[in-house]
């Protein structure tokens, strides 16, 4: 009797373990799928800017090539990890903004503020940059007149406060099949998987702007 009981207890425990392992595997696969998409047009358009600067023998060219290399390395290798140093992620965010600014017209006003203790912290890659990709797509790209993007990142203890505002542009969405970039839905799902109960996301659509506010417990 006792033997039988302990035998079934083992079985239950084993089944639970198996189930947990399966769940974990599923999450890993899903995360991988969610990460696999970065808009390839960004790279070709940036290469086109580089080509233009090369024709002009523009002084900004060498620095831009380095920024693009860094960004490609991030997308191809670094972002495979579930968590990476926050400092690295923020460097790439800045490089991404610099490359987008290079492509934009003079009427785009970009403000970037990063403050607090960013060293010794970890973050899931590709989250912040996805919000930025959206901001450029809907804001800067949505108008040929005055546009703005305001980014404010504050780190206090292990809390990261991310606020991103951009003008509401008009975009005539071209159907690009699977290449629509990372997308907000995608990022929401990643947050649920990687920061369960440890994130607050608030996306507001105001009259003239979009405001994204994200709070993360790192």
């Amino acid at each position, binding site marked *: 009797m006792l033997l039988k009981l302990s035998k079934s207890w083992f079985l239950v425990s084993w089944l639970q373990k198996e189930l947990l392992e399966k769940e974990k595997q599923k999450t890993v696969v899903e995360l991988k799928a969610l990460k696999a998409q970065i808009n390839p*047009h960004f790279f*070709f*358009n940036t*290469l*086109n*800017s*580089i*080509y*233009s*600067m090369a*024709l*002009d023998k523009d002084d900004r060219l060498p620095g831009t090539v380095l920024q693009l290399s860094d960004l490609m390395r991030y997308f191809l290798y670094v972002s495979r990890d579930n968590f990476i140093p926050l400092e690295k992620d923020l460097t790439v965010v800045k490089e991404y903004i610099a490359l987008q600014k*290079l*492509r*934009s*017209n*003079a009427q785009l006003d970009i403000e970037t503020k990063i403050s607090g203790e960013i060293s010794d912290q970890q973050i899931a890659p590709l989250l912040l940059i996805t919000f930025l990709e959206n901001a450029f797509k809907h804001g800067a*790209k*949505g*108008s*040929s007149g005055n546009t703005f993007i305001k980014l404010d990142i504050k780190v206090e203890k292990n809390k990261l406060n991310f606020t991103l505002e951009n003008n509401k*542009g*008009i*975009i*005539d*969405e*071209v159907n*690009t*099949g699977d*290449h629509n970039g990372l997308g907000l839905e995608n990022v929401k799902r990643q947050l649920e998987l990687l920061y369960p109960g440890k994130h607050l996301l608030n996306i507001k659509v105001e009259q003239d702007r979009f405001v994204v506010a994200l709070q993360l417990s790192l």
Partner: protein
Amino acid sequence: MSRYKCIIIEDEPLAQNILKKYISDHPSLELVAICADALEAQAILTQQNIQLLFLDINLPKLSGINFIKTLIHPPLVIFTTAYPEFAVEGFELNAVDYLLKPFSFERFLKAVNKVIEKLNTPVQNNIAFSNSFIFLKADKKNHKIDLESIHYIEAIGDYMKVVTDTVQLIVNETMKKMQEELPVSLFIRVHKSFIISRSKIRFIEGNYVQVADKSIPIGATYRNELLLSIEKKN
């Protein structure tokens, strides 16, 4: 040599820069404007006769693809884009070429050569032909002439006299060019100095053909073709 008027529709300044350079290096192209979006271009198209658009696809407000769909008589189009996935749709919209960014000057030349070839046949300079009418340039005006209304065309020195139901126009064109422009189904050459409207023939007598009220000589080299075409009708 006349230059073809073109505009760039592209929102990224560095991408504009490449096209601007390429166009200025091309002897047959004249850059009229650089537009950051399609609506800007629309305004220019209504004011000027533009032969060629360099058109980006991913643009603010209105995409290049949808812009072309709004135009009733679009100029020739070369798409310039980072999106390979629109090539099929682009060509369905009768784009002359589809350039993937970044592209070389050689690739650009190839696309422009296709445009020039298209512009040289069969529509060119003083004559634009579309279905049932042509535009003829005379006394600094572009006259719209119904093909049905033309009686005959006569070469006078370096000019062509075009006689219709209502007007006589003196056009600076060559016989060869006129013959290329006019549809064979409606017109026939009968003399080194005359093209006549088939439908205006009243009768043929000896070496003369009566076209409306005018008696026109039939040249020896053209006689057979004229008689053959009449036989076919019978």
